């Protein structure tokens, strides 16, 4: 058994951490928070130069041709650093769908430009019910119609992949955002460092990705895969909260001793550690399932997703608590993680979707 990342992968992670500790300080993140920008454009350009936008894109399409394991360790560092860039939308979701289901023409047309940073993309994640997705977009004769729906990063994307319903079932469609029929308006978000947009489609021109009626399976699978990567971001963020809480309570004194010497605080931090260890371990298993296309992927992704969401919420809220009143100020960074924890745990569907997906899969496995 070897349930650990390789030395090369750990080296990539270390490099990513060092790079982000310089280029993506919380000071830097705050310029997006306070400035109202949709992303940190300078950081994004650096990320393109590092090749991260093409991490999992094969070299024949201009990418780095690395496995998802390398992307997992990068994702952990992006989460730790609260990177205000649209990599999850563009790479984990849109690129992944094209890799999974795009035609050769679509791949040749889009993948090199996604890898090279010439275009950005996103995916509309439809509302999740109990374990399945419920698309709200209607398809007819190549055009798409939809009332306003939420799409992460739509305002900074060159195309959006949406799931739409027609008489053949649910299909996936690619729409470019340069058309008038695609109306994108900004909106406020719990986490302003990762912007959300309202998108309305008024008979937007589209092209199909994948076959008619197979959209639900492809998108469901793609979201499983993205959930593993986002779980690494969540684990990274949760770890940053634990580090922050440990640092603050060790250096702050009350009643003549470090706050961290009180068992009420020690046990709180120990519980944060436990939540992170469980989430990290499930994320590792998810990484294995993702990189090997294991039959267990849905279950592995759901477990990684649920425990990482729980861990990040727990760690980000208890980090605020450990900071006392200062944790509730705009000035302290605690709320940046607390906001990001919410953003990440909602982005690919909330706990209701994932818990039901997990239990449905358990039932399926035991019926077989």
């Amino acid at each position, binding site marked *: *058994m*070897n*349930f*650990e*990342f*390789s030395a090369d992968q750990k080296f990539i992670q270390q490099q990513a951490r060092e790079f982000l500790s310089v280029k993506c300080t919380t000071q830097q993140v705050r310029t997006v928070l306070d400035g109202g920008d949709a992303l940190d454009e300078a950081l994004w350009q650096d990320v393109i130069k590092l090749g991260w936008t093409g991490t999992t894109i094969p070299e024949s399409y201009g990418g780095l041709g690395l496995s998802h*394991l390398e992307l997992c360790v990068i994702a952990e560092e992006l989460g730790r650093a609260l990177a205000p860039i649209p990599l999850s939308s563009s790479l984990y979701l849109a690129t992944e769908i094209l890799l999974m289901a795009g035609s050769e023409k679509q791949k040749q047309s889009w993948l090199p430009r996604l890898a090279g940073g010439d275009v950005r993309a996103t995916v509309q994640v439809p509302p999740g019910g109990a374990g399945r997705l419920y698309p709200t977009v209607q398809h007819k004769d190549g055009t798409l119609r939809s009332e306003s729906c939420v799409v992460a990063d739509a305002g900074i994307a060159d195309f959006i992949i949406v799931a739409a319903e027609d008489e053949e079932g649910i299909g996936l469609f690619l729409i470019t955002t340069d058309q008038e029929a695609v109306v994108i308006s900004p909106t406020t978000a719990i986490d302003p460092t990762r912007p959300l947009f309202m998108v309305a489609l008024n008979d937007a021109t589209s092209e199909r990705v994948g076959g008619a009626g197979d959209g639900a399976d492809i998108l469901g699978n793609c979201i499983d895969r993205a959930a593993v990567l986002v779980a690494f971001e969540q684990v990274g963020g949760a770890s940053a909260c*634990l580090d922050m809480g*440990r640092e603050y*309570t*060790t250096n702050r004194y009350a009643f003549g*001793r*470090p706050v*961290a*010497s*009180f*068992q009420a*605080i*020690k*046990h709180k*931090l*120990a*519980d944060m*550690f*436990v939540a992170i*260890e*469980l*989430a*990290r*371990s*499930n994320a*590792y*298993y998810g*990484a*294995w399932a993702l*990189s090997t296309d294991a039959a267990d992927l849905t279950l592995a992704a*759901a*477990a990684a997703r*649920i*425990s990482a969401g*729980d861990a990040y919420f727990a760690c980000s809220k208890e980090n605020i608590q450990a900071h006392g009143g200062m944790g509730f100020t705009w000035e302290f960074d605690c709320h940046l993680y607390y906001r990001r924890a919410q953003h990440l745990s909602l982005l690919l569907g909330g706990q209701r979707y*994932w*818990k*039901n997906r*997990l*239990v449905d899969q*358990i*039932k399926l496995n*035991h019926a077989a």
Partner: protein
Amino acid sequence: MDFNDTAEQAAFRAEIREWLSVNATARQPNQGVQDLGSVFRRAKEWYKKVYDAGYACHTWPKEYGGGGRSQIEAVIWSQEVANYAEPDGYFVIGQGNCGPALMALATEEEKRRLLPRMASAEDVWCQLFSEPGAGSDVAGLRTRAVQADDSDWRINGQKIWTSGAQFSQYGVILCRTDPDVSKYRGLTMFYIDMEQAGVEVRPIVQMDGGQHFNEVYFNDAVVPDSWRLGEVGGGWSAALTVLMNERMAISGVQPNGFSEFLQFCLSAELADGPAIDDPVVRDRLADWYCKDAGLRNANSRMLTAISQGGIPGAEASLGKLVGAAMNQEIANFVLQEIGPEAAVCDEQFAAMQANFQKAILFSPGIRLAGGTDEVMRNIIAEQVLGLPQEPRADKGIPFCDIPTGSSS
């Protein structure tokens, strides 16, 4: 990242599979409750057989009766033997804790004489640390060892929570030899003959009616000075060696009640339909699945670290802390789901041979044994996260001046 054995590990696994298929008894459903004495006798016979085949105490050197193998091979053994109805880890306190203490601190002659008999379970060993007044604060123990003129030590006092004391030929005991120095410096470790007149073992009846532990009373029990393990006053560091090895001995995931809960979810019919379709059950099943998976996967990470030559640190506390609390919560949840009839404890009537009724009564003990939940959190906080200790009222003062309360 992969879950495959190396060629060497695969060969070892195949070898022991072959041996087990010939020598081990297959699992049978619902074996029923056996009395402790007969379980013990069966375990001793099984361990002798294992020893004769060369599979006892895998990580010990061969000259002391072990297998001379790596930790990962010990884990492979545990995984394979778990498929059979044979006891594994039954003598873990002796082999896992007392053995390494002897290996570190006994003379060569003693090691060659005592360890092979421990490995074959011909001699059973127990560990005598905890006392009525020294639980989480084990260094506060009061059992006295006083050296007489003939250089023998006389032991007086009481130990508690001693597993297997009634079956033991020997024990490793931690005693206070000097009450006038600070508490950690006045302790000394010995091994002791448990079958002598001055040692009395009394079983403790637990809140669930079971009797897994004992009280052990010492009235002028005699220990030769040559049976001392380490220096006089060096008992605490000797004890830490033992406790560190206790963590090494943890090779599997602690029982957390999940597999029984999953069985309940998949099979139970509640008054209004299958349990698995109840939204409340589904929510909890997802939560506990994630915890159980997290523990299994954390264990795989730990085994990987061990196979790469690492030593499991305080992270090993994770499984016990999470699993013990989960066990109790699962038991309560299932009983609440079933409703009024769940109050019946009779194995004939209660679902799954009253598994959850038994668990609700036994589970409080798991949160206490081998370090309470609170001690586990302190270990994680101090040893993993490096947080400062609480200020202590007993620091730097002689043991005899440390304040004590009346509660034992």
